[in-house]
């Protein structure tokens, strides 16, 4: 009985920090235990146990995002070696649906958080800019499965897209002006007015308890 009480106090604390409901936290905790093999922390290797994830071309970026100190709010750069359940929930909370009943400021803040998560995925060296190299890296990963696409095509696609982004952010450039990279502000500018909220969230099922009759 005593153990049950302290567990629910922890759950309430997590509820407050991450915004999940207590049932969702319990379900995610079970999932966490399944992934970690009943250990208190998860390492990168534990994500190898999710077969469906293998199909995803940007699998390594997604797994990396879990350990990224910027997403975990633990520092400006670098990767953690292992994460505990609270960190797991923190990352998951980036994908909670935006609560439109909150004030406009809150909605704007949530939106920014989601876009920042995505920005960190592109910006692998944590310097605050998405350079041409990093962009190329992402495109190559997304197209890596197809043997018919040579590296050159992937590069040219990335270059073309980068120029497009540059023209949106900086406008017309001088011939010898070098575009250093997309900063977070530029990133936000690209997404201004576009509804990304519905694409960057995972819908949780409404968990109702159903009584059973024998």
């Amino acid at each position, binding site marked *: 009985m005593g153990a*049950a009480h302290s567990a629910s106090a922890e759950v309430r604390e997590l509820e407050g920090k991450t915004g999940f409901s207590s*049932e*969702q936290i319990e*379900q*995610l905790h079970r*999932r966490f235990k*399944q*992934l970690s093999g009943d250990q208190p922390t998860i390492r990168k290797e534990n*994500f*190898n*146990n*999710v*077969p*469906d*994830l*293998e*199909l*995803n*071309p*940007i*699998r390594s970026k*997604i797994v990396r995002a879990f350990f990224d100190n910027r997403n975990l709010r633990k520092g400006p750069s670098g990767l953690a070696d292992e994460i505990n359940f609270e960190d797991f929930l923190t990352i*998951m909370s980036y*994908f909670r649906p935006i609560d439109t009943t909150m004030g406009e400021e809150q909605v704007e803040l949530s939106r920014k958080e989601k876009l920042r998560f*995505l920005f960190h*995925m*592109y910006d692998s060296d944590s310097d605050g800019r998405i350079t041409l190299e990093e962009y190329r890296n992402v*495109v190559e990963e*997304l*197209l*890596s*499965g*197809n043997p*018919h*696409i040579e590296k050159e095509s992937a590069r040219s*696609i*990335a270059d*073309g*897209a980068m120029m*497009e*982004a540059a023209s949106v952010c900086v406008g017309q450039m001088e011939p010898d002006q070098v575009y250093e990279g997309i900063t977070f502000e530029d*990133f936000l500018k*690209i997404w201004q007015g*576009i*509804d*990304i909220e519905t*694409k*960057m*969230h*995972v*819908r*949780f*099922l409404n*968990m*109702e*308890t*159903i*009584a*059973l009759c*024998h």
Partner: protein
Amino acid sequence: MFLLLPFDSLIVNLLGISLTVLFTLLLVFIIVPAIFGVSFGIRKLYMKTLLKIFAWATLRMERGAKEKNHQLYKPYTNGIIAKDPTSLEEEIKEIRRSGSSKALDNTPEFELSDIFYFCRKGMETIMDDEVTKRFSAEELESWNLLSRTNYNFQYISLRLTVLWGLGVLIRYCFLLPLRIALAFTGISLLVVGTTVVGYLPNGRFKEFLSKHVHLMCYRICVRALTAIITYHDRENRPRNGGICVANHTSPIDVIILASDGYYAMVGQVHGGLMGVIQRAMVKACPHIWFERSEVKDRHLVAKRLTEHVRDKSKLPILIFPEGTCINNTSVMMFKKGSFEIGATVYPVAIKYDPQFGDAFWNSSKYGMVTYLLRMMTSWAIVCSVWYLPPMTREADEDAVQFANRVKSAIARQGGLVDLLWDGGLKREKVKDTFKEEQQKLYSKMIVGNHEDRSRS
């Protein structure tokens, strides 16, 4: 030392009497009916009593939980999240459409937004993954007084704990020795019986005897596990020259099917007790046992199976094409080997009722002996067997499509989920070919656009 003597003889007497009683019970109520294939209905009565007790126990727990304001039932859900069923193409088109305010022919071939789809899909699979769910035992909605299935129910009342304690006593001290004695009898009768029959000259009499020896011993084993089986559609039972195909949950499946029909088994030669049983069985009638080295050679396996099937006098072969034990909530990919042979396939669906004892063998968690002990200390094993009408491969189907057709039929009849995934994933990783499929689709979309552009 002298003081112990009177007590000694008392204990010895008691032991003697209880053993005699046990053996008489065994003989009269269990073994004799098994030999003749008759049933007294004792097991069905046992099942009804157990159900009443479980219902009472659950009611008590509900009442107890209400008094203390605890949540008793787990949330009833098949998963944590609602996955979007749209395909890769649709979603990316939608994202690009909503993202770009320019005319469609000016859209760039690749957008920053394309990463959204994969990112979200990745998150969804991390949160809730269909495949991993299939490989752990099914969770029950009510408690069947076995502590091993107690995930959520905490100690609620003294009466319930006493009942549970009584249950433990009955299961371990009464049922377990009884069952072990029965299993022992069954297996030794099988070995001795088939060896004896093996000495007879080949002919109708030998076949008749062999069939009945096999059936009798399997029936005894069925009673050793207290398995209460309901057979449906017995007119569709497999005939000579056919292949019987069933979904696999545990090694007990073999005993369940073989106690109602006469099959030729297929399998690897084992050492130890299994090896002794295998060698004895093969003397009485032709089973197909492969050496460990031969198993890898698919052509050899296919050749032997085909030879067996062509001979109409030989028995139907029993095969489990999933290749591994699944937890009885779904059917996984069937290996195509047995479907390439071209014989008539008789599908059979087996569904266990987990309320009395979970029959799933999680071979990464438990060894064979631990598993059998768990089975023998459960209340009972209740299952239903459906014999489906025979199927043959059609002219325009290949082996894989035929296998999938049979799989869907079995899944539909047994009320199981039909999955595309390979049962081998329990131990191995995803084949690279599957990974490449998704990437190819995505890159086709981008390069396709690119080519259109360069052409115009």
